[in-house]
């Protein structure tokens, strides 16, 4: 009896582990090994000379020290945090507004709107950057043309990439535009979970639209909002393609660096791969800290329900 019971117990506890084992092993292989290699690289002097010989020289924490003593690192970090906050906030607010709109509009309009969103989503980033670049072009850009013809001021030959603020604003527009479909459609799906009778009951009790949104819709959407926000933070903090291509290599300077571009310039352009590895690990740690609040709250919500 006891042995049989024991066996059953053992089987019960072992099965879940056996089931997740393939995933754990796969993740360990495809994430763990590169991560290990990255850590090793970050502790080495590894430049062009070492690259050709495939052999680095161990230097301990020198790369980390040099990065943390770099003024540019701290300025870039601050800029990237502000940039990320602006991008995530805009994405979430506008995404939520679009989702709420999707609920309200008639079926044909909803189909039209969501197909538009899916089209945006399906556009490859590099193509989108190119289109954006054309539209905001200095010489013949359609944005300058339209703004001028709407008599919103003289935008003839307006340079949208003249200042850091303007450059990053263009990048923000592009990123938010590209991120909206995912956020809006996911939130729209979440809105379907809001019980209609609850909203109706609230109306009967005299609740206004804002009150209903604040006290019914928002609490139900909270888990989804948390997931989307933490994902957006991770994406926007490390975004590379949009800023690098839209601003253009020849305009990238320490004055407009974002973290990923700083990493690219230090690691690849200067062929200092050890230092680049140190920067990327620091970035990983920062993203971890930034999103830990959200992850913890998400876990707590999971436990509660």
């Amino acid at each position, binding site marked *: 009896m006891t042995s049989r019971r024991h066996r059953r117990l053992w089987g019960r506890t072992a099965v879940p582990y056996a089931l997740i084992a393939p995933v754990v092993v796969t993740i360990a292989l495809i994430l763990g090994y590169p991560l290990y290699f990255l850590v090793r690289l970050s502790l080495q002097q590894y430049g062009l000379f070492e690259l050709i010989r495939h052999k680095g020289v161990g230097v301990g924490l020198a790369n980390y020290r040099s990065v943390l003593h770099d003024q540019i690192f701290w300025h870039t970090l601050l800029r990237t945090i502000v940039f990320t906050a602006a991008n995530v906030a805009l994405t979430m607010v506008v995404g939520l507004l679009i989702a709420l709109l999707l609920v309200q509009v008639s079926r044909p309009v909803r189909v039209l709107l969501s197909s538009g969103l899916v089209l945006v989503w399906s556009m490859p980033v590099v193509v989108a950057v190119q289109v954006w670049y054309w539209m905001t072009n200095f010489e013949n850009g359609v944005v300058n043309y339209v703004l001028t013809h709407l008599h919103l001021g003289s935008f003839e030959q307006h340079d949208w990439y*003249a200042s850091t603020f303007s450059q990053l604003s263009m990048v923000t527009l592009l990123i938010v535009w590209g991120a909206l479909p995912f956020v809006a459609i996911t939130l729209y799906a979440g809105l379907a979970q809001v019980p209609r009778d609850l909203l109706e009951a609230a109306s009967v009790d005299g609740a206004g639209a804002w009150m209903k949104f604040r006290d019914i819709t928002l609490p139900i959407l909270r888990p989804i909002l948390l997931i989307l926000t933490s994902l957006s933070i991770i994406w926007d903090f490390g975004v590379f393609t949009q800023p690098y291509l839209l601003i253009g*290599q020849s*305009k990238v300077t*320490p*004055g407009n660096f974002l973290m990923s571009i700083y990493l690219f310039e230090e690691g690849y*352009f200067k062929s200092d791969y050890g230092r680049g590895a140190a920067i990327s690990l620091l970035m990983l740690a920062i993203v971890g800290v930034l999103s830990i609040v959200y992850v913890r709250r998400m876990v707590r919500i999971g436990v509660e329900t």
Partner: protein
Amino acid sequence: MKRRSIAALLLVTVVAAAVAATTSGATKKANASSITVWLQTDAQSGWADLVASVNQKFQSDHPGTTVNIQYQGWGDHLQKFDATLAGGGGPDVIEMGNTEMTKYMAAGAFADLSSSKSGFDNSGSWLKGLAASGVYKGKTYGVPYYAGSRVVTYRSDLFKKAGISKLPTSTAAYTADAKKLMAKNGKKGFSPIYIAGTDWYFGMSFVFDYGGGIATQVSGKWKGLLASPKSIAGLTAYKNFFAATSRASKTTDETHPNPYDVYAQGQAASMIGPSWFSCCVGAKYKGSTAQFVMPGHVAGTSMPGFLGGSDLAVPITSSQKALATDWIKDFTSTSSEKTLQAKGNIPNATNLLGSTVNERAASRSWFVPTAKHWVDVENGNILRNMLAQILTGKLSVKQAAQSASDNIASVLNQP
């Protein structure tokens, strides 16, 4: 029994030999079957026909060998190259800008071609400056490919219409002509002289014209020169010249857009750039396009121009070094260089020099500091950023120059 075993043994030997023969033939063929060459897109838009004819000759001299040409852009070819140094699959021949060579030669990225130097046409009379960019510690790693100076490409019809009968012989005269051109072509967005704001090759020409410089080595240490009074005079002159003559973006570089595209759309009366720009001015303006040497601020002199150029090198990772060297020999032969010259480039050797506008412009030229870390200054856009700051008025000439100068010194003095 014995006989049978001997027969069997013989059979095995024959089969083995046959297999060996086919495999050795196969490997030999596979090894020799192709070389990969990385050329810049300049060759693609300017002299793709030369590349094709050189490949044809090379392939007829080396039957069974194919040449795989891959065109690269200046912006990212070094990053791609670094990746192949780490992971393999790289080119057998690579075109390098003359300002990019030092860093790679110092790191040991290229094969030593000193022993085959005499096999290259005109190697005894290679252009000094260009040949020097391919030599490190007395060994030759780069074969001069071609050089180019920067000239003014202009529309003679517009000049004539504006009443300009004589080509300008000083910067001031050119500025006055630009004003005439501006008056005749009032259209918004029209530039009498299209100058990309952050075209540092042109900006630095003013610095050198006024006797300034970028950086110099003083007892083993690099010292920035951009904040010197002479350099500041040059930068101020550039700012004034740009303001009076160009309506290009103050923050863009000389490839976004390509100046010749602006010109071909009829939006510019003249432009500054490599002489091969005449290739792409559009059919409409081909007949009225001509070139002259950019005049300096002292009447009668020419403005010192950047002597750009390319070298060809064989990466250390190549498994076909001999074939690669042979291909370079064909591509830099006297006849190839003459074709390049006909396309408006400066050939790689003094005995081939003629007296075109381009070649005359090269008589007064400047070059970047030959430092291992110079390429980091270029990639870090230190000079471009400085010019943008100056032209947009974000910083005064002095402030911008001082900060760039300090920056350059610290980059060049890295270990």
